[in-house]
């Protein structure tokens, strides 16, 4: 029931009448039901004050900020209510012990590759060779005994994968190579935009659990990012973001008109962002019948289940097996 809201207008966010209000530049007042809010994504020029920021931890509402180009700039991660020192200590031990760390790093990549191949096999024509190359690389994952080796394997797999986009996507969308800083073409812009949404979604699921978002395994725990989010997002980027990209482009929902180029940066304009978010939100709320839970589980909930499985792995309850979409 917890919803995300995306703020594109300019205006002010405030605490009012014991809930959140967004007041736009024309003075229209919109109330946001605080009890039902998971996170807010702020794309517009928005003012907010400490009264609001002090109010959010009570309801665990996360704020995500995006810059002028629509790319992620940061998160306000309110103080957590449910912490477990015990769990965090165990989580850290799994990073400290290199073999344990390697096991998890491999698990994330293995699942990511499973989902990458799943996407590619749906578009089998013309990319058989690339699929075979990835399958060969995949065999090296098992043998790798260093994280940087793994990163190298993953990099090569992604390179083949992105090459295959040129066959999967409609003709007017092509990609030479992945360019992040900054994206210089529409396909890279889509990937960057989608990946940052994924990163914030994973972060907000981690927030609801006892995991510490800064202790990671595949990515080096860093000072700049909640790197556990990056780890878990590996699993879900091909499963969720890429399939949204293929759908939007191949059904001509997003066209070249939805992109802008400024200062050597290519980015989605407001129309494009809204189209993307609509489809992405639809995907996140799509449900699959879970084989063990015997319940329908949304794609978004699958992220939380991944967090739960990691906790169980850390506390020595159940060895972690990453999600591999079976549907």
């Amino acid at each position, binding site marked *: 029931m917890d919803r995300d809201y995306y703020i594109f207008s300019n205006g002010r966010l405030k605490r009012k009448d014991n809930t959140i209000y967004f007041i736009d530049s024309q003075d229209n007042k919109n109330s946001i039901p605080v009890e039902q809010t998971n996170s807010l994504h702020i794309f517009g020029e928005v003012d907010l004050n400490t009264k609001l920021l002090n109010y959010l931890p009570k309801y665990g509402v996360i704020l995500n900020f995006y810059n002028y180009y629509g790319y992620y700039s940061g998160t306000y991660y309110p103080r957590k209510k*449910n912490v*477990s020192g015990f769990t965090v200590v165990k989580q850290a031990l799994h990073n400290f012990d290199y073999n344990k760390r390697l096991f998890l790093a491999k698990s994330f990549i293995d699942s990511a590759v499973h989902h990458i191949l799943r996407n590619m096999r749906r578009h089998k024509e013309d990319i058989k060779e690339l699929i075979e190359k990835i399958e060969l690389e995949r065999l090296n994952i098992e043998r790798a005994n260093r994280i940087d080796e793994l990163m190298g394997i993953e990099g090569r797999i992604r390179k083949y994968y992105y090459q295959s986009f040129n066959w999967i996507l409609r003709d007017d969308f092509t990609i030479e190579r992945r360019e992040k800083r900054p994206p210089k073409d529409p396909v890279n812009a889509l990937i960057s935009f989608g990946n940052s949404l994924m990163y914030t979604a994973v972060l907000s699921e981690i927030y609801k659990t*006892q995991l510490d978002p800064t202790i990671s395994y595949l990515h080096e725990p860093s000072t700049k990012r909640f790197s556990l989010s990056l780890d878990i997002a590996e699993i879900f980027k091909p499963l969720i973001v890429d399939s949204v990209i293929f759908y939007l482009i191949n059904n001509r929902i997003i066209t070249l008109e939805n992109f802008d180029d400024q200062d050597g940066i290519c980015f989605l304009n407001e129309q494009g962002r809204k189209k993307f978010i609509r489809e992405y939100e639809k995907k996140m709320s799509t449900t699959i019948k879970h084989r063990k839970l015997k319940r329908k589980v949304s794609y978004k*909930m699958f992220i939380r289940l991944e967090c*739960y*499985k990691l906790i*169980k792995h850390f506390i020595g*309850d159940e060895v972690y097996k990453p999600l591999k979409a*079976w549907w």
Partner: protein
Amino acid sequence: MGIDFDKLKVQGVKVNYFYICKRKLWLFSKGISMEQNSDRVLYGKLVHKNAYPRLKKREVLIDDILKLDIMDKTYVKEIKVSSKMTEADKMQLLYYLYYLKQLGIEKKGMINYVKERKLEEISLTAEYEKKIENTLVEINRILKMETPPALKKLPYCKKCAYYEFCYALEED
């Protein structure tokens, strides 16, 4: 007194969980709580709030580990949603009575099942005292375990706040 009570005393809710699910007890004790995602827990809290609207004083906190709903001259009263988990609720209340007795306060217990509109009275007998003492020893044994008690399927798993946590498993 066959046990060192001061060493073994625990929060009342842990006695309750002990009789519901030992795995839940262990997880909860490590701060791995799921209550915040649970509709049922939310509902339980409401029932508490609304059961005795005229009562000003509610929730007596003792030693920072006992949270009594209501205490008057004769009774410690507990409010529960339904009588489905009777044994666990009863043992929790008996534990409160036992605890108070260690402090030199003797009371009777009363459980108010709101859904069924049923009151149940209970007293601390010697037999119950023994049972509470054994329970405390057992609880402490579980809390010392390195890893959680293994998942055991119980008829009320589906209603538990930990359901998604426990059954988030992959097929081989």
